[in-house]
């Protein structure tokens, strides 16, 4: 089943990028019947506004699939912050990163985040699982970071280890999150997730659009 129609629809509704991945081998028993992951992202930080836009896109996706007789399960962008709901028990069984890499939308960079070849890590993600038999896009299997180690150099807490991600070694500790968090806690009081963001902004892929826009003399939005 072709996914182009759904992708085009979601893009007109505001999605920056959309892909479909085969997640069958990454899912727990409770949800293996929902083997396709629709990974979608918008090129904004995970603000309240971005979350709402992604939730709207997910609702549209659900409705689109339901109209055609398919099941779906939306994993919201801020799935780790949702507590006290039964369905939230299933959220931790699905990783937005896995969905994104399987859908061919990016690889896991040295900074531990999904890097898209056009937008770098400046994306907010959401995933919709479905049993619709879409042909999956071709997944990333290896990191494309190469020799670049800007995020390793610029990380103020030495959390970024400089390892190249590969699907063959998913357990590698690419970023030592303990270190990343401890530094943040000393400096600020965070109400939500701490986020210094240097490893995002320094990434050449994240800056790609900015650089192009500057060359053309266009002011970039934040």
């Amino acid at each position: 089943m072709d996914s182009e129609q759904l992708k085009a629809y979601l893009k007109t509704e505001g999605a920056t990028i959309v892909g479909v991945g085969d997640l069958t081998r990454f899912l727990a028993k409770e949800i293996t019947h929902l083997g396709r992951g629709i990974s979608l992202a918008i090129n904004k930080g995970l603000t309240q506004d971005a979350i709402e836009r992604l939730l709207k896109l997910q609702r549209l996706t659900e409705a689109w699939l339901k109209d055609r007789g398919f099941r779906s399960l939306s994993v919201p962008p801020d799935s780790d912050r949702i507590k006290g709901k039964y369905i939230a028990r299933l959220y931790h069984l699905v990783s937005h990163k896995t969905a994104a890499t399987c859908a061919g939308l990016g690889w896991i960079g040295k900074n531990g985040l999904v890097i898209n070849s056009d937008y770098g890590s400046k994306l907010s993600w959401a995933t919709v699982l479905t049993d619709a038999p879409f042909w999956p896009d071709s997944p990333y299997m290896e990191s494309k970071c190469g020799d670049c180690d800007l995020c390793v150099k610029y990380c103020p807490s030495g959390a970024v280890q400089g390892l190249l991600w590969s699907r063959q070694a998913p357990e590698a500790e690419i970023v030592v999150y303990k270190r990343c968090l401890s530094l943040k806690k000393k400096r600020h009081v965070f109400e939500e997730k701490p986020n210094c963001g240097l490893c995002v902004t320094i990434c050449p892929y994240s800056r790609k659009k900015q650089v192009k826009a500057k060359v053309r003399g266009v002011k970039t939005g934040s």
Partner: protein
Amino acid sequence: MADDAKKQEIFDKMKNGVIQYDEDACKEGAQEALDAGLDANEAIFDGLVAGMEEVGRLFEAQEYFVPEILMCADALYAGLDILKPHCKQMDIGVKGSVVIGTVEGDVHDIGKNLVKMMFDVAGFTVYDLGRDVPLDQFVEEQLKTDSELVCLSAMMTTSMVGMPKVIEKIKAKNPNCMIMIGGAPTSQELADKWGADGYATDASNALKEAIKMVSFLKKLRDEKLAKK
């Protein structure tokens, strides 16, 4: 008659809200029931639980899977949260308190939570110990609360081996306490061997067992009402 029709309409709204995992519909229905001065217990049983019974059937027929069940549970709770404060303790001859938890070494608690939900709707006082609960805590909690029912859940064989110890300890101190065990590795044989009073192998069976139990309470209540 007009009142009965209105009542049914409100109950159906809640019932369908649960079936179609529509939290807003359940909330609205629950509020309408209260506004109309309907009995909260009746609204729970003939609205929310009726919906969950249908969900149980859909699950058995494999039309619903675990994600749908969990979303239905969320919808049910959305309505229950509104109705619960207005509930009278049901007068059905059982005092109704239960200690429930997933045993030490196990963090799988979907089934446990579904069973807990059905106890909640039945008006039981539920002492939920959560997951990965040390064995002695079940015994202590049972003694402390004098609950007549203890539910032990485990998904893994390795954590299940703790169950007979808890059963033995509780039965030694309080022979009248009923004990239910649940989780994939449990069976009737094991329940018999360990002296447990009931068992359920998975979330769907646990839900079925719990629905059966609550349906039974519902029947008792109806019989009682009929006598009056």
